[in-house]
């Protein structure tokens, strides 16, 4: 393709100044010779253009008989043909081979998809740009089989949690991100519109080259590079839209709350509940319709020697929660420069600057706040909800007012600079330096205020916090490429060094002369109140890598790779990990005996096996082998109450810690039917993680402030990744696709003496149990069999305490006549057993449409926000409508209580977490080329799009997805976080 352009460019230089010429011809399908209707014909450097008619015929007027015509048709390869004096030109067009045999990015290189022996999922820019989000990870949701994406929260600027092929560890299960070769754990700064493609490496063969960091999968993000072309392409892409919360939680209104409170206290505290009416809708008080907008301007171009892509982006998102704001400026400069025959240098540089305002955590307090209060009382003061309802309750309106002066600015300079030397004909040496400089600057001011005894601030405080991370990787690789007749060999060997350091400090003062922004700098405060602190950590990794790809006759494929990692995280004796993998592929579709069948156009089998490490699982433990002494454990002595330093061992070290590793087997098959219109990719995998490093809960008598980390368990994730696509080219081009990822997660062994890991303690009781034979972190508690109709019924039944009429009845599972700890059981898993997605799209007469659906099933959610009651909070409607009362003794839910046995960990709080969501939908219209060319515009497209417009879920909360970055045995708990939003956008895309 590039060569064609090159030739054309040279021809172009000698064609100019000819008179108008009419050209006609017929456009046909190369496959079957039928005429193609609606093919766009455009003069490459002129104003001429047209569209083929119902018979496939066309007539265009061009500047001269030496012009070049460009034939484009959705789903077909675009052709550029020089007239060379002809006035009749018949063209036959073939389907775009790139769609079938594209080049995909793999670790430390690229490969033809047909040569791949590993499981790699790929998403191109077109599908990423469609989702209006500032987060690359969120844009991946529902796009690739085996890749499960959960938004962290709806807070603007937040990313998402990605799980590739299940949850393979008891600790941090996030994949690593490799952005143009630089490894990072946080890709939140990447502007999705700068992304050319995202490849997700799923199996051991693909991931092994990332060794100690590959066990959770690898997300490769490649940003757009400059393309060699005659005229630079200038693109403008902008959208503006509005967001709102996807749903509201059904809570009691004021009169219902008053009735419930009367029942709770068995009083007539509210003499006439009905008189209170609706009261305050606290969700309405904190949520809002919020705008979001994006402008992207980029210039892309290049010559034989120098290619460039420059982009500037401004993204601004207001949160659906009041006082949460996010804006980000991203600049990107990607260049490559052929210095001479043997040397190429280049860079991918990105700078981002973000500013966020963080709202206080009022989502939970709005959920809890009784509706009988107005935000402010009749005197204009914020209402104090603690009387009579208890101290653990805060007025969200007051928090929003007093605690929103919380700003965070971040700068990130991220990129790679490389030099590539070709030598000895088949060798390429590449030295790649990647860096990531990031700094954060936080400013938080809380004025003096008092709403209640527990919601107050008695001295004004200004806190400043600065953090700086400096990460770098230096990679040296040598690649040997050789093709003989039927053999193709690529050998890669490399050495990399990686260092990451982080340092932060903070300072605070109080006693400011006022609350005005211009006064809120430390020096304005009282210097006798000053405090400061600072801390740092670092880590290093040295790695050797090796990979061989061998292809015989384009049919028989072999990949062998190995990485040796040495990490500073482990004690010297346990520092080195070796991570090998091997895989085989067979392009059976190219065997004549298969070709002759005429059934499949493409058929490929793959099998791979490898061992990967998961250093990520101790992401926040930088020195886990060492016992770390914590200081600042102060105590005062003496009549002057002098602060004395105290220090002791808080983090227990474990020098015996060894690498957590995953063995993964993958068997895959790729097929194409009906001229490759139908393609299918099916993988079966078995991912077995052993020596899992994780903190384990220990009894309190050990006296440790932290749980120790040990190599504790083995977990198996076994499942299928299935991708099906139908792609129909033509005037009415359409596509349908589905991804299906059933996965079963099972704990195979717990190495320690312990037979179970109990975690997620809620009011003294564990709410999850991790035990051999069950998924990680399965909910664990009592099973509810009903509600006691009467005190007599309760008295006669096995009980856990003093349950009476209207209380939950728990199942006596061991039939010993009493309810106790032995009656607890597995109550379901928070891990979905199936994640799936559907996508559909069409293009016709300038219109384009695309939609994505995604869903999960088989997971449970613990409605923890409903089960926490430290004071009298509002109740959910579900606790009220059919509650037990003396007059409704057949009620299906318990009487109104605020503590006691009804709040024990039980399946009363467990709900179905399945959902299906219309993740995105976009409808666009591209103005006809002929029309636009007169305005010197290459392309002009308008679109409307929507995200999360429709969701079908059983769960009563905002959403059954809560990105919990904690340990896997504490996921699936809805503690009331920032909900996700649904949004509408209107956009414009223009290229010159």
């Amino acid at each position, binding site marked *: 393709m590039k060569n064609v352009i090159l030739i054309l460019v040279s021809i172009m230089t000698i064609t100019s100044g000819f008179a108008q010429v009419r050209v006609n011809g017929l456009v046909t399908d190369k496959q079957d010779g039928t005429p193609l209707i609606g093919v766009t014909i455009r003069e490459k450097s002129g104003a001429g253009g047209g569209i083929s008619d119902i018979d496939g015929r066309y007539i265009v007027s061009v500047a001269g008989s030496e012009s070049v015509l460009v034939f484009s048709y959705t789903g077909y390869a675009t052709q550029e043909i020089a007239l060379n004096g002809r006035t009749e030109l018949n063209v036959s067009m073939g389907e775009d081979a790139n769609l079938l045999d594209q080049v995909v990015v793999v670790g430390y290189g690229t490969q033809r998809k047909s040569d791949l022996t590993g499981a790699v999922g790929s998403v191109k820019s077109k599908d990423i740009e469609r989702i209006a989000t500032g987060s690359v990870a969120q844009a991946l949701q529902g796009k690739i089989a085996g890749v499960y994406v959960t938004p962290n929260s709806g807070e603007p600027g937040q990313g998402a949690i990605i799980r590739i092929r299940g949850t393979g560890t008891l600790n941090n299960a996030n994949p690593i991100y490799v952005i143009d070769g630089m490894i990072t754990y946080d890709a939140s700064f990447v502007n999705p519109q700068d992304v050319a493609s995202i490849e997700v490496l799923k199996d051991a063969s693909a991931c092994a080259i990332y060794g100690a960091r590959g066990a959770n999968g690898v997300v490769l993000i490649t940003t757009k590079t400059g393309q060699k072309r005659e005229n630079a392409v200038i693109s403008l892409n902008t959208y503006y839209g509005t967001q709102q919360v996807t749903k509201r939680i059904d809570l009691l209104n004021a009169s219902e709350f008053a009735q419930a409170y009367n029942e709770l206290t068995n009083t007539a505290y509210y003499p006439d509940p009905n008189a209170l009416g609706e009261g305050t809708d606290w969700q309405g008080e904190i949520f809002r319709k919020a705008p979001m907008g994006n402008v992207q301007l980029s210039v892309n171009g290049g010559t034989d020697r120098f290619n460039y892509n420059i982009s500037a982006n401004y993204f601004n998102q207001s949160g659906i929660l009041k006082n949460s704001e996010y804006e980000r400026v991203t600049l990107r400069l990607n260049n490559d420069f052929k210095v001479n025959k*043997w040397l190429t240098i280049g860079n991918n540089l990105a700078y981002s600057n973000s500013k966020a305002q963080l709202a206080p955590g009022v989502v939970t307090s709005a959920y809890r706040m009784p509706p009988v209060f107005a935000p402010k009382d009749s005197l204009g003061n914020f209402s104090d909800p*603690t*009387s*009579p309802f*208890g*101290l*653990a309750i805060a007025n969200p309106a007051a928090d929003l007012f007093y605690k929103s002066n919380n700003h965070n600015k971040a700068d990130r300079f991220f990129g790679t600079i490389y030099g590539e030397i070709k*030598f000895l004909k088949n*060798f390429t*040496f590449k030295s790649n330096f990647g860096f990531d400089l990031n700094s954060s600057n936080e400013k938080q001011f809380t004025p003096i205020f008092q709403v209640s*005894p527990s919601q*107050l601030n008695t*001295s004004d*405080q200004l806190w400043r916090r600065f953090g700086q991370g400096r990460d770098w990787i230096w990679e*040296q690789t040598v690649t040997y490429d050789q093709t003989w007749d039927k053999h193709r060999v690529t050998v890669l060997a490399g050495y990399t060094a990686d260092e990451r350091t982080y340092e932060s400090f*903070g300072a*605070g003062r*109080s006693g400011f002369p006022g609350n005005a922004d211009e006064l809120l700098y430390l020096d304005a405060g009282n210097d006798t109140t000053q*405090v400061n602190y600072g*801390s740092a950590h*670092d880590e*290093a990794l*040295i790695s050797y890598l090796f990979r061989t790809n061998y292809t015989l006759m384009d049919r028989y494929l072999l990949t062998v790779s190995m990485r040796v990692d040495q990490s*500073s995280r482990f004690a010297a004796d346990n520092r080195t990990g070796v991570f090998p993998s091997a895989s085989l592929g067979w392009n059976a579709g190219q065997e004549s005996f298969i070709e002759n069948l005429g059934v499949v156009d493409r058929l490929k089998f793959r099998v791979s096996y490898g061992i990967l490490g998961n250093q990520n699982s101790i992401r926040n433990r*930088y020195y886990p082998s060492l016992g*770390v*002494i*914590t200081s*600042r*454990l*102060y*105590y*005062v*002595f*003496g009549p*002057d*109450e002098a*602060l004395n*330093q*105290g*220090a*002791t*061992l808080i983090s227990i070290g474990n020098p015996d810690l060894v690498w957590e590793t995953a063995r993964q087997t993958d068997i895959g098959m790729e097929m194409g039917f009906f001229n490759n219109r139908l393609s299918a990719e099916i993988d079966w995998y078995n991912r077995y993680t052993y020596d899992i490093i994780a903190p384990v*809960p220990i*009894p*309190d*008598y050990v*006296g440790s*402030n932290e749980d*120790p980390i*040990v190599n504790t368990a083995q977990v198996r994730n076994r499942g299928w990744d299935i991708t099906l696509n139908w792609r129909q080219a033509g005037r009415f081009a359409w596509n349908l696709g589905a991804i299906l990822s059933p996965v079963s997660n099972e704990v195979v062994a717990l190495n320690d003496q312990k037979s179970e890991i*109990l975690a997620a303690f809620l*009011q*003294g*009781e564990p709410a999850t149990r991790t035990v051999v034979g069950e998924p990680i972190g399965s909910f664990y508690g009592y099973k509810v069999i009903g509600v006691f109709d009467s005190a007599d019924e309760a008295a006669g039944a096995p009980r*856990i305490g*003093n349950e009476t009429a209207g209380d939950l009845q728990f199942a006596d599972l061991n039939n010993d006549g009493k309810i106790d700890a032995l009656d607890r059981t597995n109550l379901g898993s928070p891990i979905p057993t199936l994640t799936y997605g559907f996508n559909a799209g069409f293009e016709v007469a300038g219109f384009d449409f695309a939609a994505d659906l995604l869903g999960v099933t088989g997971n449970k959610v613990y409605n923890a926000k409903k089960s926490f009651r430290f*004071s009298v909070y509002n109740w959910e409607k579900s606790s009220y409508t059919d509650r037990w009362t003396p007059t409704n003794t057949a009620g299906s839910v318990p009487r109104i209580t605020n*503590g*006691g046995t009804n709040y024990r960990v039980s399946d009363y709080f467990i709900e179905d977490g399945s959902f299906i969501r219309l993740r995105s939908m976009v409808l666009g219209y591209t103005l006809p080329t002929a029309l636009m060319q007169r305005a010197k515009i290459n392309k002009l497209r308008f679109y409307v799009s929507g995200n999360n417009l429709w969701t079908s879920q059983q769960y009563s909360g905002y959403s059954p997805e809560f990105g919990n970055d904690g340990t896997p045995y504490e996921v699936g708990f809805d503690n009331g976080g920032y909900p996700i939003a649904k949004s509408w956008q209107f956009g414009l895309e223009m290229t010159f």
Partner: protein
Amino acid sequence: MNNSTTFSSRCLITAGILLLAVTGCQKEFLDRKPLGQLTYDTFFENGQQATEATNAVYNQLRQWDCIAFPWITCTDIISDDADKGSTPTDALYVLEVDDFTFDGTNSSFSGVWRGYYRVISRANLAILRIPDVPDMDPILQKRLIGECKFLRAYSYLLLVQWFGDVPIITEPLGGDSYYNQVRDNQSAVYDQIERDLLDAIDALPEKAQYASSNLGRASKGAARGMLAKLYMVKKDFPKAEEQCLAIINSNQYSLLTKYSDNFLRVGENGAESIFEVQAAALQPNDGVIGPGATPYNMIQGVRGVPNLGWGFNRPSDNFVASFENGDPRREATVIYVGEVLPDGATIVQDNPEIINERYNQKAWVPAHSGLQDNGPGNIRLLRYSDILLLAAEALNENNKPTEALMYLNLVRKRARGTNNFILPDVAITDQAMLREKIYKERRVELGMEQQRWFDLVRWGRAAEKMQAVGKNFVAGKHELLPVPQAEIDLTAGALKQNPGY
């Protein structure tokens, strides 16, 4: 071609040298130590660090679990001295303890269990490592170990009184012993406490022997006082008498002239103070909790106007009624609506949400510079009058009523002050009648100072007194708190629950 080959060779050689150079310093590159933090291996290198490790044990004493909700719940609120307080529906899990409707999952019990085992753990580490600190002043070395042993013994004394048999852990636990501890017999726990306290008595200086800047550290007198308490629990009255008299005869302590001064700033570490949790309202470091403070004052502070806190731990009707007519200690112990607070200025306003509004005046502190949960009040764990009453109690049990009366009347005399119309001297010498007088005196003298529950249990009167105020107390069960359910779960039942739970 030739040129290019030469160039390529040069490249290869350069790359090779680079590789070797980088590989050479690899070990250094990979050996990382925590930044700004010492490690287990680099700590305990000098006397300063040994002192810091000991200070960290004290530090745990002022953490939430040890002196806030769990502590007050398992001492005052559980007893007949106090009710939960605050508004009726606030913190109902505390009410469960007040009402004896709890089980092993109540966070109050896991709180004190966790809190005091953390004291023990920090002490164990210091006791293990301080003897090996190089070039250390032997006097300091001995004293620090003594302080840690005192703190460890104090923690076990609390745990054994609450839970009965508890695991005795005297060294830092390794990974293979996290889950297999069993409860040691109560008498073995007593022996452990006794050993530690005898060592502490030997190692520690008297209060006055400490440099002023070290005021607040555990002293010989404090260790003797805790030992006396242990002997009282064991009903070993002769030994209790011995320890009490040793404290009295050390002339380190005396009663303050004015009872109420004990609980004001002026009384902190005063002549009557034997051991206190030290606190100061300093600016918060990062976040909310101050570096030298406790939430003790906030939790019990007046809730309403003036707003000093949350209003928990309300002195009960039964307790208020237990004072003799005119006993000024009642006014010094209880804050009522309409009362002028000890700062002499503020008057407590009625809060209509709180029924029968009262507060613990001994936890009162004036408005201060710190945040509300940055309470500056020291927590008086052991006062001289407590020792005088223990002396009286032990002497009476040892059939020395005359001497017993002397100490009892010292306490009453001070309480009476200059008002000779109240609190007359006791003259009864009948052992059983005198015992009642002493028991009664302990209650009013030490009311709301977290002593009552332990006294009732050791006297064997918990059931009688709890049932008298209508609590669901089951005799033979509720004298001991349930072992936290989470501990039993985590040890897969190696820890057994107390009977009845």
